[in-house]
C-alpha cells in the first residue's frame, strides 16, 4: 500500500489537479457534494455527501444541441462539450456501484448516450473505503462491500494520521506516480466496524415481486408520499430525464434535465391519457423499478443502500420498510 501523511493531501491533490479537474467532497451552498478541488478548500469526510456524484456524469441540466429558426428554416447546431480529464476523489463504494449501474443504463441496451460517455470515460474514481456504517446505510443488503469497489481506479483508506492508497487499475497506478506522491510501505487496510442500522431482505427479490403488482398492499403504502421527488433527485441510481427547449428569439437550445417518476405529468400524454394517474401507481413504479424491473433488465438492483432517500424523505417513506413489508406479504402469500 502507498501512504500519505494527511497534511500532504493538499499538495498531492494539487499535483493531481494539473491538467485535470479533481472533484472532492466539501460543503457548498449549505449542502455537501463533490466540488472542484482548489487550494484552501475544506474537505468533508464525516459522512457520505448529501448530493451524490451522479451529477458529474449526468448533470441536473445539460444542453443537447442548439438550433436556429428563422421563418420556416431550421438549423441544428451540435455541441461538443470537449470534456477534460477528471478525477472524483473520495466517493464511497455505494456511489461507485451506482456509477456502474448508470453505466449500464446509459451505455448499454442498443444505444450509447454520447454525452454521458464523454464525461464518464475521462473520469477516474478514487473510492474511499468506509470504516463504519452511516446513519441510514444498508449497502450490504445488496451484496456490496463497503470497503471496496470493483470499478475503482484507486482505493483510498483512512489510516488515522495517514491516507492509504491502493491502485486498482493502471490509470490509478499512474495517479500515485506524482512527485508529491505517497510512498510505498507495509500498511493494513482499516477494519470495518459497526452494525448496519437498516437492512433489506432480498431473498424474495426480484421474482417474488412479480405477482405483487396488483396487490392491495399498495393501496396503503403510497398514502403518505407527498410526491415531492426528493428521493429521486438524491438517488445516485435514478436516471430519468426530461427534454425541454429554451428559446431566445430565433435561436435556442434543447436541454435535458432531471425528471422524477413521482411527478404527475411524467407519463401524461398529449391526448390526456395517463397510465400512472395517481400517487399509488407512481410510488409502486418507483419501488418496483428499483427492486424488480432493474434487476430484470440489467441484472442489478436499482438501489445501492446509500440511505439518502431514507434520510431526506420528509414523510419517512423508507425503501427498507417498503421492501421488507413486501417481503412479509410475499412470505405469507
Amino acid at each position, binding site marked *: 500500500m502507498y501512504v500519505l501523511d494527511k497534511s500532504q493531501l493538499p499538495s498531492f491533490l494539487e499535483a493531481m489537479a494539473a491538467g485535470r479537474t479533481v472533484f472532492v467532497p466539501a460543503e457548498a451552498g449549505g449542502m455537501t457534494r463533490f466540488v472542484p478541488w482548489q487550494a484552501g478548500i475544506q474537505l468533508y469526510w464525516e459522512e457520505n455527501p448529501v448530493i451524490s456524484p451522479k451529477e458529474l456524469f449526468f448533470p441536473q441540466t445539460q444542453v*443537447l*444541441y442548439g*438550433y436556429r*429558426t428563422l421563418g*420556416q*428554416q*431550421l*438549423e*441544428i447546431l*451540435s455541441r*461538443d462539450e470537449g470534456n477534460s480529464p477528471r478525477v472524483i476523489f473520495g466517493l464511497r463504494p455505494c456511489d461507485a456501484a451506482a456509477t456502474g449501474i448508470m453505466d449500464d*443504463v*446509459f451505455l448499454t*441496451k*442498443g*444505444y*450509447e*448516450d*454520447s*454525452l454521458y*460517455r*464523454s464525461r464518464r470515460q475521462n473520469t477516474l474514481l478514487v473510492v474511499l473505503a468506509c470504516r463504519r456504517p452511516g446513519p441510514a446505510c444498508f449497502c450490504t443488503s445488496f451484496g456490496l462491500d463497503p470497503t471496496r469497489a470493483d470499478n475503482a481506479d484507486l482505493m483510498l483508506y483512512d489510516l488515522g494520521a495517514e491516507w492509504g492508497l491502493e491502485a486498482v487499475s493502471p490509470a490509478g497506478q499512474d495517479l500515485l506516480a506524482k512527485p508529491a506522491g505517497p510512498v510505498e510501505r507495509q500498511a493494513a487496510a482499516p477494519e470495518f466496524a459497526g452494525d448496519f442500522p437498516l437492512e433489506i431482505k432480498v431473498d424474495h427479490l426480484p421474482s417474488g415481486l412479480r405477482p405483487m*403488482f396488483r396487490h392491495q398492499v399498495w393501496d396503503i403504502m403510497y398514502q403518505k408520499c407527498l410526491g415531492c421527488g426528493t428521493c429521486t433527485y438524491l438517488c445516485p441510481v435514478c*436516471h*430519468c*430525464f*426530461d*427534454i425541454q*427547449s429554451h*428559446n431566445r428569439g430565433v435561436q*435556442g437550445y*434543447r436541454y*435535458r434535465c432531471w*425528471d422524477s*417518476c413521482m411527478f404527475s405529468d*411524467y*407519463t*401524461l*400524454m*398529449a*391526448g390526456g*391519457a395517463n*397510465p*400512472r394517474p395517481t400517487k399509488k*401507481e407512481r410510488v409502486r*413504479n418507483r419501488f*418496483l*423499478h428499483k427492486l*424488480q*424491473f*432493474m434487476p*430484470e*433488465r440489467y441484472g442489478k438492483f436499482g438501489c445501492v443502500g446509500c440511505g439518502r432517500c431514507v434520510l431526506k424523505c420528509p414523510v419517512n417513506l423508507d425503501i427498507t420498510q417498503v421492501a421488507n413489508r413486501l417481503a412479509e406479504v410475499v412470505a405469507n402469500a
Partner: protein
Amino acid sequence: MPENPLLPMAGQIERIITETPDVKTFHVTFTGGKPFVPRPGQLAMVSLPAVGEGMFSISSQGEQHLEFSIKKAGMLTAALHEAETGQMVGVRGPYGNGFPLDLCRGKDLLFIGGGIGLAPLRSMIVYCLAHRSDFGHIQIIYGARSPADLVFKEEIFDRWPHEPDTEVNITVDVGDDNWQGHVGFVPAYLEELNPDPAGKVTVTCGPPIMIKFVLQALDKMRYAPENIVTTLEMRMKCGIGKCGRCNIGSSYVCLDGPVFTLAQLQNLPDEY
C-alpha cells in the same frame, strides 16, 4: 466523440394532406435523401425545436420521404397542424421494434384499426401490398367516429379494396346523410364479420377502449394470444431507453415495443 443519438437532423415538410378535421399527413424530405429506411411499425421523433418533440409512427415512406400522420392533440401537434409546406422540422430515429414480419409471412392477415390507429397499420399494409406474394389473404376492418374522421380515404375506398385477395370493411360509429356503409363500433363489426382465426395473424391499433373490446372479441373468436399483435403508446422523451418514463414493468415501449403480441402483454403489468 461518438454521434449523439439525441441529435435530430433537419428535414422539410414537402406535402401536407388534410385527412380529417384533426389529422394531417406530412411528407418530410431531407437534403441528400432519407436519413434511414424504417421497418413497418417503427417510430421517429419529430420536432419543432422551439415548441417540442414527439414520437410518431411512420405511417408510410417513399423513395425520398417519410410520412407522419398526426392527430392534433397537444402543443406540438397543434403547431405542426399550423405549419405550411416548406416548414423545416427535426427528425431522429428510427425507433422501436416494428411489426413482426417473420410472424406474419405466409399467413393470412387481419388488420383492425380505429381512428388514427390506422396510421401505424398503414405502414404494414403498404409493405404487405408491395410484397404481396409473401402474405395470404388480407382483411382490413377499420372504423372511425364519423365518415369525416376516416383517415387515408383514397386508400381505404379506392385502392386497397382493388388489391388482389384483399378485403376492406369500413364502419363508422355514427353515419351522416350521405353515408351508405356500415354503422357500428369496430369490436361489434368484428364479431359480426367473424373472420376465421385459422392460419391468421391479427394486427390491431386504435383508441385504448377499442383495443380493449377488440381483444375480448378476438379471445371469444379463439384467436391465440401469440397471433394477436398490437401497439402501445406511452409518453416518451429520449426514444432510446434512457429517460425512463415509457416503462411497462421492465420493458421500455420505445425500445422493446411499441409492438407487442398479446402473449407478451399478458406477461407485463397492465399499466398502459
